[in-house]
Structures are given as structure tokens and as C-alpha cells.
């Protein structure tokens, strides 16, 4: 497995895809923090912590990063090159998933640096109680976890769908159309969807009636990832690859 992981990490470092997503992440975080502080006028602990909890918006970017990375293997037919060396496609997919999870952590850490570097000075000038060490720890932990799990889940989705356009469009439609519709129909069901669970892990406010508690959300995302990987592994093992 270590060879697969090393190879996947090398592949991640040797194209501009990861860099492109990191730049998109920086821009998103800048926008998120600046708009949150300047337009949101945060004065409570929850609101201030939410400004620094960039896992909420960033997890979606990393989810797409995983989808794009995994489907690129099929799009550019590099999946066959790997399978000719390691015939177990499941092993390749798991290695890829771990590599993208680590990349998600790295990108999340970089984005946290950006968010903290801009957000903390801006928040210091706001009224209300100051954030404590546990608030920072929650923002850091939740954001990193959401980024890593988002990227891993994205890889599983990508392996399952294989077609890059279909996977990206399908993911976006699910997150921004199906997900809100399901939540509107039943928030009890909606909070178990992976988009909402990612928000609960990386995002703001902790548990409320529309969000799972942190631990429950982590469990839900892990379950989504495991289910997607099992199905993807089964589909991929039966798929003819070009």
C-alpha cells in the first residue's frame, strides 16, 4: 500500500490540478473571511468561530478536487497504466483516497493559515467576547477533518462514476439542488446527507435541528465514504478499462 500511496502523492505533486484547487481555495477563504467579518459584523463566540471555520465552504472544493482527480485517471487513461503494475484496482483506489485525504489536510492547513492570518486581526476589532483556545482548536480540527474527508469522499465518487463531466456535474447538482430540496422536505433526513454532514464537521455553530453533532457528522461522512468506496470498488472491479 505504501508504494501506491507514494505513487499517488507523486502524481498529485506533478500536475497543476492540486495547485489550481489550492488557489481556488485561497480565493474562497479570502472571500469567506472578508465578507463574514466586514459584512456579517460577528459579535458572538459562535459567529466569530464560524468566520475561522473554513472547512464549511472548503470541503466542497476538496470534494470536487477528489472527484476531478479520480476521474482524471479514467479521462487520461492512466488508470490502465497503474493496473498493469498493481492489478488490484481496489488497492489503487484506497491508496488514491488516502493520498487525496492527506492532500486535503495540507490544503486545509494552508487555508487555515490564510483564514487565521486575516481573520484574527479583523475579529480583534469586533465587539463581544474573544475566542478561546478551545474555539480555535474546534475551528482547526473541524476544518482539517472536513477537508480530508471531503477529498476522500470525492475520490470514491470519482471512482464510482468514472466519467469526469458526469461526476462533477452530478456532485454539484446533488449538493446545490437535490440536497436543499431534501432538507426542505425533511430536515431529519437532510442532515444525514454528505453535504450537510461536511458542513457540520467543518462549519459553524455545532449541532442544531438541521445539523448533526460533530462526532455524529464525522461518523456519517465516514459511512458515506466507506459505502461509496465499497460500491465503487465493486463497480470498478467489474468495469472494463481502456
Amino acid at each position: 500500500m505504501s508504494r501506491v500511496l507514494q505513487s499517488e502523492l507523486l502524481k498529485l505533486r506533478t500536475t497543476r490540478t492540486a495547485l489550481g484547487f489550492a488557489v481556488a481555495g485561497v480565493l474562497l477563504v479570502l472571500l469567506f473571511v472578508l465578507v463574514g467579518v466586514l459584512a456579517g459584523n460577528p459579535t458572538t463566540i459562535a459567529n466569530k468561530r464560524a468566520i475561522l471555520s473554513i472547512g464549511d465552504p472548503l470541503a466542497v472544493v476538496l470534494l470536487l478536487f477528489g472527484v476531478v482527480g479520480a476521474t482524471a485517471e479514467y479521462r487520461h487513461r492512466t488508470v490502465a497504466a497503474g493496473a498493469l503494475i498493481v492489478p488490484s484496482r481496489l488497492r489503487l483506489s484506497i491508496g488514491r483516497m488516502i493520498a487525496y485525504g492527506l492532500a486535503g489536510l495540507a490544503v486545509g492547513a494552508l487555508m487555515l493559515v490564510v483564514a487565521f492570518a486575516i481573520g484574527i486581526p479583523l475579529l480583534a476589532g469586533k465587539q463581544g467576547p474573544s475566542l478561546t483556545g478551545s474555539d480555535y482548536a474546534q475551528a482547526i480540527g473541524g476544518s482539517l477533518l472536513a477537508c480530508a474527508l471531503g477529498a476522500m469522499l470525492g475520490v470514491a465518487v470519482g471512482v464510482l462514476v468514472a466519467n469526469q463531466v458526469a461526476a462533477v456535474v452530478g456532485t454539484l447538482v446533488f449538493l446545490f439542488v437535490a440536497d436543499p430540496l431534501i432538507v426542505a422536505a425533511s430536515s431529519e433526513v437532510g442532515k444525514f446527507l454528505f453535504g450537510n454532514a461536511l458542513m457540520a464537521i467543518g462549519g459553524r455553530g455545532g449541532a442544531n435541528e438541521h445539523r448533526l453533532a460533530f462526532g455524529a457528522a464525522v461518523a456519517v461522512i465516514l459511512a458515506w465514504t466507506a459505502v461509496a468506496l465499497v460500491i465503487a470498488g465493486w463497480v470498478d472491479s467489474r468495469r472494463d478499462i481502456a
Partner: protein
Amino acid sequence: MAGDTSGTAIRVARLTKRYGTVAAVNDLSFEVRAGAVTGFLGPNGAGKTTTLRILLGLARPTSGEATIFGQRFASLADPVRTVGASLEISGFHPGRSGRNHLRSLAVLGGLPSSRVEEVLKLVEMTGAADRRAGKYSMGMRQRLALAATLLGDPKLLVLDEPANGLDPQGIRWLRDFLRAMAAEGRTVLISSHVLAEVAQTVDDVIVIHHGHLVDEGPVDRLSGPKQVSVRSPRLADLAAAIERAGGQVSRAEEGVLLVSGMDAPQVGDLAFSAGLPLHELAPRAASLEEVFLELTTDDPGTSP
């Protein structure tokens, strides 16, 4: 690389692959000798790539099996050191350099990075290795694909249409490259839809058409029955004499007979004894291309 020149390297047994109602490969069986260079021939759409993909575990057969050194590809203990395969010249990320593409495969196969430099040198790509693969010409992509097949110094090379898109210089380079691989004792299976590309390189040929085997054996045998071309001002008399002696004649062009069933000295002796003048007497074999086309051209009405 220890070349294994005994036994069977590849065995395909009653292999069938259906896509819906279409049989891409249909009850195909053949063997590839270890240590030989074998041409896997057939027109476009004959089922060559599908067969190779099944052989390499990239596609599932509907029935039958294909084995490499007696094992299915997925069961090979060390695939990268056993088989080097190139099925797609576009099997790399266009944004990644050739060197990094090979490095990622070397790491995956547990091979030292020095091996990447060795194979780049072998395929004469060292100078272009840091350019993005998407910027490579067709010939450079083929070379990069060949470099990837050689990473593990494998006993068996499986190359699918490696001459596709190459210019004449590239084809000559490929021919020399394959000869060098064969000289090292490797088994090579090379597919092509153009016999001329591989005819000078291969020992054996396997010819398939519509997913069926139509011929296999040493390439010399594929060259067809020997004939004698003979020119004479008394062609009718000569034809009659040959037929009386047991030969068969056909008219090749104006003033020329093609004689089967007799060799050139026999035809010459016969003409001399009959007092018939000869202006030309030459042995002639049907070209490989003619035989290949004959084997793989549909009769009207028989095409599926």
C-alpha cells in the same frame, strides 16, 4: 532480464468477449512461444486490442481465459517484472512530464528512480523528459509508452499498435528497437493492422479477423505457396507442356505465366527439352501483404 526461451509465454483458450450482441472476440485460441517475436495481426476492429486487454486483466472475458506464463495476469506475483504492456499511447496525464510519469510508475512498481533514467536513455527521450507529455509528438508519445513497458525489465512485452502514427524514421527506429528486445531473449507480442510494419521483425504471426483466428504459425509459412514466373514468346505451347508435366498455370499479365507445382529448374528443364524459348524464368512468392489481405478480406455477403 532473464529471457525464458522455452515453453509457452501466452495461452489464449476459447476466449470470447461480447458487447451486447456483438462478439468482439469469438472463441479465440492461440499460443505465443516464449522467446519469440510474434505479430498479432488483423484489420481494424478485428478484436486485437480487446484480446490484449483481457490478457492484461483490464477487461473481463465473457468466457474462456488468457494466461501469461501459465497464470492469469491478476495472479502474477510480480507483474511489472513479468509483463511490460503498452495499450494506449495516451495513457498519461497531459500536464505531467514524461519523466514524472515514469517516476510515478516506477514508485508504484517498487523500482529505483535510476531505472527511469535508464529507460529514457533506451528510448532516446532523455532530452525531452521534462516537457509535459501533452506537448509530445506522436512519435515521442510512442517512445514514452515503450519506456513505461521497459521499466520493470520484463520478460514479456505486449505492444498494441506501437507503430501507429509513426513516420518512416520512427518505424525504422521501432523495428531496430524490437530487434534489440528480441536479441535480449524477450518474448514480444506486437499487434498491428499493417503487416508490413512488423513483417521484417516477427518470427511468428497470429492473424485474426472478426474475432476469429484465421491463421497462425511461422511468418515464413504465411508467405504462401511458391510459384514460378515464366515469360516466353510461345506461351500457349509452354502452358500445355507444363500442364502435361503436372504443373498448374495461370496468366499473371500479358506474356507471363505463373506456374504452381513445379520449381524454376523443373520449368527450365521442361522448356529446354520441349524446344521452347524462355525470356524470363524467376521464382516468385506471393507477398506477405497479399496473403494477409486474402486472409482478412471479407467475401461479398459474408461480412457480419
